[in-house]
């Protein structure tokens, strides 16, 4: 039985194809359109999924959309009622997205693809139910508590559910406008980052500050109960009115103005970041605890955009709130497509019980064979050598020489993290590497750390990590014996709060992946999950004795992760990467022709 799941028209549109209970293909629309977080209807992603099975939409057994447009419309209207005199403009502003698209999702499908499945009908699931399904059915557990937390679906912003076998029961919920995701996004906005794409930057900023505003947030902005449920004080927010995220009272509370994007990040914003991060961790811990107790289980699965906060996830594990924790790699809205597909299979089609304990494969996107790549290189005259059995050794040698390597292999990852198939790799022990990668490769604010990929069997040599972390969704402290003497407060004072200077101060023997609080966002690698990537890390270990490398996503700032060999080559040439690996082809920067970004079809991306 084949089910197509679709998410989109809010942010991070995607499609996923499921066959007999297993996700066969999935991808985010942004990777095809090259528009970051693309909210457009995911025509390209749908086309990719169908092409993988050489099917038409009319051939699939069920097509499921991850959101109920009727309930979303209800929220819009009720929100408008709340806005009273200001409702007229709000309704008109939102008409474009609601009426052109969200209410018309079935018509878009028919226009683009014809018949909607064998029965020619579109099934709609619930937004948070889709998140819940994306986490539970993909997890290795036969039963688990399910916690979903995001900005908002139709109404729900938080749900607690219980999954067992092939059923999911939602037990508790919180509704808009009381949203932890919105709260975090409000601070993201106030600190000058982009809403719905900049939240992880706020998370990366937090370790530089102190949570001095924690009490003010808990007293004035949000009331949190012991069970983790909460309500926002709406007087401080403005997103209900569709004008901005926060009201004037918000800035007045902290005696600060909103930071302008790209302007200097001063101490006040670092402290705001630290404060909201502490609040978020506390709420997530309480919610996780409530979920496990309510469901009577130690297995916990997470999804929804807030589950991408890997620092909070790490705390849940560290404190033993759940015995076992699994997080959907595509925890945001893109993963809703995966959840919708699962729901279609189990609830609509009555699919069989699923295999339990199997490792979830998140490499679900397009792959390119050597023949295609060779033809691309030849057509454009890009010099390359073809590696054979010594592939892993040659790549490892480049890394050991301190080179920055763009790695393009296998199927593209589904979800926001690059996990070795669309990654830029570099030495983690090189003291200057963090700065080099930030400035010369990623072209981004340099306060943010890079993440390590490490062989699972050696992970405990480097990190205080209790479990494997295959999807880079857990933060863990760097082992104490690897740390050097470093004090963030002293460093801020001595360097006039200039994070660009502080980030280069050595903090451990793996400086490029150690944050200022000695934490790291870890990916553990096994042969089972990614054989080619595992072999590279093993070869690297044989060469220089280290089992880990920096792994950052293969893209420049503002660009989605690369999808095609063309994307990869353009990114390679626009940056100071030394080496590009396209499957078995090795390209050296010094051999390449001069790149003209305009003539060669490269794009300029809006900063995110």
């Amino acid at each position, binding site marked *: 039985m084949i089910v197509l799941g679709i998410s989109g028209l809010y*942010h991070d549109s995607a499609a996923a194809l499921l066959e007999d209970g297993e996700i066969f293909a999935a991808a985010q629309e942004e990777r095809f359109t090259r528009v970051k977080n693309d909210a457009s209807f995911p025509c390209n992603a749908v086309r990719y999924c169908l092409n993988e099975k050489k099917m038409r939409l009319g051939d699939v057994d069920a097509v499921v959309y991850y959101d109920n447009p009727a309930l979303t419309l209800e929220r819009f*209207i009720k929100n408008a009622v709340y806005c009273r005199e*200001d*409702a007229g403009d709000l309704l008109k502003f939102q*008409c474009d997205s609601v009426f052109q698209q969200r209410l*018309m999702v079935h018509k878009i499908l028919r226009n683009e693809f014809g018949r909607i499945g064998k029965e020619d009908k579109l099934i709609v699931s619930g937004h948070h139910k889709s998140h819940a399904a994306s986490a539970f059915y993909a997890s290795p557990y036969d039963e688990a508590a399910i916690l979903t937390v995001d900005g908002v679906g139709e109404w729900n912003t938080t749900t607690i559910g219980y999954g067992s076998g092939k059923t999911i029961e939602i037990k508790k919920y919180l509704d808009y406008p*009381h949203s932890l995701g919105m709260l975090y996004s409000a601070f993201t906005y106030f600190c000058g980052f982009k809403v719905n794409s900049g939240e992880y930057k706020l998370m990366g900023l937090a370790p530089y500050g102190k949570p001095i505003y924690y009490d003010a947030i808990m007293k004035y902005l949000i*009331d949190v109960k012991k069970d983790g449920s909460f309500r926002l004080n709406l007087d401080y927010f403005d997103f*209900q009115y569709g004008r901005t995220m926060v009201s004037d009272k918000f800035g007045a509370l902290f005696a600060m103005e909103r930071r302008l994007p790209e302007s200097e990040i001063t101490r006040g914003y670092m402290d705001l970041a630290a404060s909201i991060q502490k609040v978020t961790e506390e709420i997530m811990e309480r919610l996780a605890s409530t979920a496990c107790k309510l469901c009577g289980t130690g297995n916990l699965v997470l999804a929804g955009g807030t589950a991408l906060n890997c620092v909070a996830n790490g705390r849940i594990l560290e404190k033993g709130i759940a015995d076992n924790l699994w997080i959907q790699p595509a925890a945001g809205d893109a993963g809703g497509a995966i959840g919708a597909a699962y729901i279609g299979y189990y609830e609509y089609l009555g699919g069989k019980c699923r295999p339990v304990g199997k490792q979830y494969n998140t490499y679900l996107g397009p792959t390119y064979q050597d023949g295609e790549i060779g033809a691309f290189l030849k057509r454009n005259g890009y010099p390359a050598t073809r590696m054979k059995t010594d592939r892993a050794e040659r790549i490892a040698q480049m890394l050991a020489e301190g080179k920055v390597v763009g790695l393009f292999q296998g199927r593209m990852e589904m979800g926001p993290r690059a996990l070795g198939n669309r990654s830029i790799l570099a030495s983690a022990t090189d003291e200057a590497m963090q700065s080099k990668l930030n400035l010369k490769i990623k072209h981004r604010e340099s306060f943010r750390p890079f993440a390590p990929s490490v062989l699972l069997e050696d992970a405990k040599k480097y990190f205080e990590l209790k479990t494997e972390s295959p999807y880079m969704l857990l933060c863990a402290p760097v082992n104490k014996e690897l740390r050097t003497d470093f004090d963030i407060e002293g460093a801020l004072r001595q360097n006039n709060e200039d994070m660009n200077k502080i980030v280069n101060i050595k903090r451990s023997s793996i400086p490029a992946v150690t944050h200022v609080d000695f934490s790291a966002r870890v990916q553990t690698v096994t042969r089972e999950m990614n054989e080619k990537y595992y072999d590279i890390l093993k070869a690297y270990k044989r060469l220089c004795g280290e089992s880990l490398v920096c792994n950052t996503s293969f893209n420049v700032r503002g660009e989605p992760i690369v999808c095609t060999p063309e994307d990869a080559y353009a990114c390679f040439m626009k940056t100071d990467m030394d080496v590009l690996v396209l499957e078995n082809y090795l390209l050296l920067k010094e051999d390449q022709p001069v790149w003209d970004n305009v003539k060669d079809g490269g794009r300029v991306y809006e900063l995110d």
Partner: protein
Amino acid sequence: MNLTDQERLHKCVVNDKLEDVVFSQPDKNCESYFESVDVQPVLSVYNLENINDIRNMMNGILAGDGFNETRSECMRITLENIILYEQNSKIETKGSKRIDVPEFIYNF
């Protein structure tokens, strides 16, 4: 007299006798804000065809909550705008965004 939407809404708000608490604020006295699910959400077939389907859907959704003038006015504005799109037969894969509206509003 031709009133704007805003003027009409203001009149409704003034006329509404009851305080319409649409969204609750924090309440220090309650122990939990969680709502319990009484009926599990079910899958449904989505097939709105025309303005009447949308009107019926909206009436159905809001029927249980009691009407006041402000809500009726919001419904009217919504339906008027839907009619505009219905008449234009405009279905977009890439939604148009207004430059005077912050982009993130379209994400919610």
